[in-house]
């Protein structure tokens, strides 16, 4: 198999800034919307609020840390699956 050759340097802000900007404004608008509706206490919104604080980290592990913050931290199998889907944020 081919050995690894790193990609050539490109301007990542040129490629990704507008998309990231758009998603950030969408997130801000979502938080405004749920607050206006008095729904900011929803555990999923609370999980988002905690995750947002992780964006201030200094190391380039933000995506990993955000995903960890949404994750079920327990380690043992549950007794029985009572639903089939997932919600997106662990409900303590």
């Amino acid at each position, binding site marked *: *198999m*081919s050995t*690894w*050759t*790193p*990609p*050539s*340097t*490109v301007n*990542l802000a040129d*490629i*990704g800034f507008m998309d990231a900007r758009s998603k950030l404004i969408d997130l801000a608008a979502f938080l405004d919307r749920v607050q206006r509706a008095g729904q900011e206490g929803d555990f999923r919104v609370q999980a988002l609020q905690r995750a947002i604080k992780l964006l201030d980290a200094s190391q380039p*592990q933000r*995506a*990993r840390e955000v*995903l*960890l913050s*949404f*994750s*079920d*931290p*327990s*380690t043992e*199998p*549950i*007794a*029985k*699956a*009572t*639903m*089939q*889907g*997932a*919600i*997106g*944020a*662990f409900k303590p």
Partner: protein
Amino acid sequence: MNYIEPHGHMVSRTTDDYERMALAGCRAICEPAFWAGFDRASAAGFYDYFRQITDYEPKRAAKFGIQHYCWLCINPKEAEDTKLADEVIALIPEFLKRPGVLGIGEIGLNKNSRNELIIFEKHVQLAQDHQQLVLIHTPHLEDKLKGTRLIIDSLKNFPKIDPRRVIIDHVEEHTIDAVLDAGFWAGITLYPESKCTPHRAIDMLEQRQGERIWMNSACDWGISDPLAVPKTVQAMRQRGWSEAMMQKIVWENPRAFMGQSEKFVMP
């Protein structure tokens, strides 16, 4: 660019999708057995499903010059019913002899329950007994981290299972290192909202230098994109990837993993 779609649920897709994928360069599709969107009432439903993915889908793909391969199991969403699961597992050996069947998958966990884990281990035992490759589904969203850890721990109970013959799919930034560092292959799934975007996938590929990783669309009956792999190739091109490195990820890597089965024959 020619590519392999290593994880697509084509029973849920239209013939138009086969045509679009062929036009985009797809030369092979691998179809893991999965949840149909509803719980099947009996093992007979799975028998017909296994007939469909081992016999009918290869013919449908061949009309567009695409090779079709598959994996067999009862998926973890239906594994809570262990009696049904045992009946389905008993059907599998007969189908393993068919051409195009690459192994056992996509097995794994969904809600990380005890019964899911029991049925997962029965599938791994089946793979071990029949020297089959293994394709593993990791749970969704908040359940993924725990499920990935349980799966890796469980596989340690099967010393005859070679990690190089196992792919753990749907990894994300918080699970990819544990999978690769334990010697397994890893799959990155390009799926709207619930899994990975093209740029996140490329970030992970760059961080791990493309080692033992494949990329797939997992296109199915949900909102998903059968062209997610070639669209990600386009994003790689934007990000300065060479043609050789793109080829490594979308062609050489899946070919190397699945080529461990003598049934997988690509030019």
